[in-house]
């Protein structure tokens, strides 16, 4: 399983590195395109976890949909390059304290949690299992999801009409 480990680290490093670039890039479009790498690497991690349906969903919805929307949004704004991303109000000390606190908590959780390690399973069909669960155990959340989508559709349409 050595190549599995190598692949995991390749995807992980790619995800983290591009995520850093998203945050630090001066040009908004560069950020958007770096996000492409992040989302893609996360999809790769899902594949390594045998969660193939989620990986594909990640690519279809996030890379193929939401990121395109972001790029369109960026293209609609007039000022693209050299945007000063620093806020004027620099609360450096509280920010450092806060983020260090969160980091400490996360590391603490990382080392104290009893991780549920399962042996490597053979890649099997996940979609039909998801489908069955969706239509039986998790029926209500599933139907509610349709209402959420309806509200989102109506809301975005109204919002768009207002800006026209």
């Amino acid at each position, binding site marked *: 399983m050595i190549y599995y480990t190598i692949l995991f680290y390749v995807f992980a490093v790619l995800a983290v590195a591009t995520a850093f670039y998203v945050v630090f890039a001066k040009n908004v479009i560069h950020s958007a395109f770096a996000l492409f790498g992040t989302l893609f690497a996360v999809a790769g991690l899902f594949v390594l976890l045998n969660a*193939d349906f989620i990986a594909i969903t990640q690519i279809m919805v996030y890379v193929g949909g939401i990121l395109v929307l972001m790029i369109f949004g960026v293209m609609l704004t007039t000022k693209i390059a050299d945007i000063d991303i620093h806020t004027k109000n620099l609360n450096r000390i509280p920010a450092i304290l806060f983020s260090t606190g969160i980091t400490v908590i996360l590391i603490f959780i990382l080392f104290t949690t009893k991780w549920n390690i399962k042996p490597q399973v053979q890649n099997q069909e996940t979609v039909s299992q998801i489908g069955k669960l969706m239509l039986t155990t998790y029926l209500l959340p599933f139907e509610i999801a*349709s209402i959420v989508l309806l509200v989102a559709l109506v809301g975005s349409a109204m919002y768009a009409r207002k800006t026209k």
Partner: protein
Amino acid sequence: MLTQFGQVLIFMIIAAGFVAVAFIAARLIGPKLPSKGKNSTYECGEDTEGDTWLKFNVRYYVIALIFIIFDVEIVFLFPWAVVFKEMGLIAFIEMAIFLIILILGFVYAYAKGDLHWDKPRPVIPALDRQIFKSEI
């Protein structure tokens, strides 16, 4: 033993290798004679005017917004479609509810004209005098 996705990855890597080889070959073989005129942005022989970033129609954004919602809907439909034959009537009824709610949204967007793309109405420049006067 390679997994199926591992084979896909190898396929992609070999394809990427081919692309890289083609690029490098072109770089080695092709001439390199850049000049100011050659490297300028194409605009029918004139210098480009103004910024590339024009103001775009907000419709593009609206289309992308509506697209995402339908995309998520389709993603929800995949697990349903694959178990449809096994589950029978229950699957049909449950999905009918899901679909009706979403078709409602589609009908709403359609009726309100959010899916409509306007026909372009080009403004034909009017001249105050005729350039080529007929000589009679």
